[in-house]
């Protein structure tokens, strides 16, 4: 079902944990859908110098968090904001269709954290235009019946 890379990131997730004095924290998802992702960022001179996550969720949610944090570490804030869930899924060697929303959650956790950061520091990122962290998406595939 899952690629070897997903299984590797699930078994040995990178960047698990918290950052006590984080510059930005973002949390997305809700327990109803079975996924909550929380990301902590340490940002210096517009560079993401450290990132950690905690995830309540399925295997692909954990792997997506792990991969996404790896992908933004050391990047500029703008670069992090430009990361799309498709890139995360691609780096994971693919996700099952029903699990694509997990990668989206990772993308949104990053955006949500930086959104908070931009508010605090009065910064403006055009990648965040229209982004609303409290907007809950109905991201599950309901499948088809009758």
């Amino acid at each position, binding site marked *: 079902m899952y690629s070897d890379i997903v299984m590797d990131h699930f078994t040995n997730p990178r960047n698990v944990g918290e950052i006590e004095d984080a510059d930005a924290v973002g949390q997305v998802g809700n327990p109803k*859908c079975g996924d909550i992702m929380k990301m902590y960022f340490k940002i210096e001179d517009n560079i993401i110098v450290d990132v950690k996550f905690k*995830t*309540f969720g*399925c*295997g692909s949610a954990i792997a997506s968090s792990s991969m996404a944090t790896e992908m933004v570490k050391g990047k500029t804030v703008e670069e992090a904001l430009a990361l799309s869930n498709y890139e995360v899924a691609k780096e994971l060697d693919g996700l099952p269709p029903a699990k694509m929303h997990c990668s989206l959650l990772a993308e949104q956790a990053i955006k949500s954290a930086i959104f908070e950061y931009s508010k605090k520091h009065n910064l403006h990122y055009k990648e965040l235009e229209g982004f609303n962290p409290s907007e809950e998406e109905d991201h599950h595939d309901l499948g088809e019946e009758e």
Partner: protein
Amino acid sequence: MNVYLDYSATTPVKPEVLDAMMPYLKDFYGNPSSLHSYGRENKKAMDTARDQVAKTFNAKPEEIFFTGGGSESDNWAIKGAAAALKTKGRHIITSSIEHHAVLHTCQHLEKEGFEVTYLPVDDQGIISIEDLKDSLRPDTILISIMYANNEIGTIQPVEEIAAIAKENKILFHTDAVQVYGHFQIDTQTLPVDMISVSAHKLYGPKGVGALYLRKGTKIHNLIHGGGQERKKRAGTENIAGIVGFGKAAEMAHENLDAHVKHLTELRDHLMQGILENIPNTRLNGHREKRLPNNVNVSFEFIEGESMLLSLDMVGIAASSGSACTSGSLDPSHVLLSLGLSHEMAHGSLRLTLGDQNTKEEIDYVLEQLPPIVQRLRDMSPLYETMKEGAR
């Protein structure tokens, strides 16, 4: 070590069962409806299987109808009764924790103009007899309540339900897929009209089931066509499957007591081991009124699929009520009906035992499980929040 703990999902086929099936996959290929000798052999084999299954219910062979599985039996019983009785009434009573084969069938009937009462259950998963009585209406035509639940193992007060149905001259159907092969169901003493069972839950093949239909009970057909199954269920018979089912049913009922004793011991060992060693864990379902092979627990702060994956990596096969295992939006309707929060429902783990399991295997599971739960909790933002709250 490889430990299969998903017997409620499906069981392996017993070697004796497979042996019984083989001739009908190889040499005796005739159609049992045919007149020639190729068919006659198969006719006899079908008769034997029907006798074997009938015996397990203390029923007559004419009361057993073979189907393509438990889901078909459920659909047939409910839709068939609804169609046959719709001029009499259009109200059906079921429970909120039925298997989807019953639940979705009832929901479908609602769209067709029937009214369905879904009885709630208490926090252990048992319906209230008072609720049932209160829900009875003059136009109630059918009560369909499962014998035991497939997820949490809770057993319903089937005798009382059957008595109420009989008293009120309402048809009573029970989905006994999960109890078949664990308990003796005696249709001479239990006034039930229809019972659904499935072969692959008691060491028989997949894709075969049966409906017990009490003599005189008139329901419409689900699958129309040829004259098979005394004109009640059309389609060339899956002879090998039916022969295997008969053999499996017979074998299961030969040493029911020893089987149940073995399972109960292992179950209790597993249940206690988990509850005693892993904090913030809840047992789902009733402690005593429970299938002898079912353990269902919820671990707070973690999600089921990631638990299953972790267990699978150490060779343990289990299942979960998490929505993430099925791709649907909501976690198990059964767990939510017990009053569990979404988090708890997502964090459920079902371990179901079978004939092959040993004490060593259970010990292995009890050794592997705590660190897996801890590792996932350590990754969970909910666990973090809880700890912060406790600080």
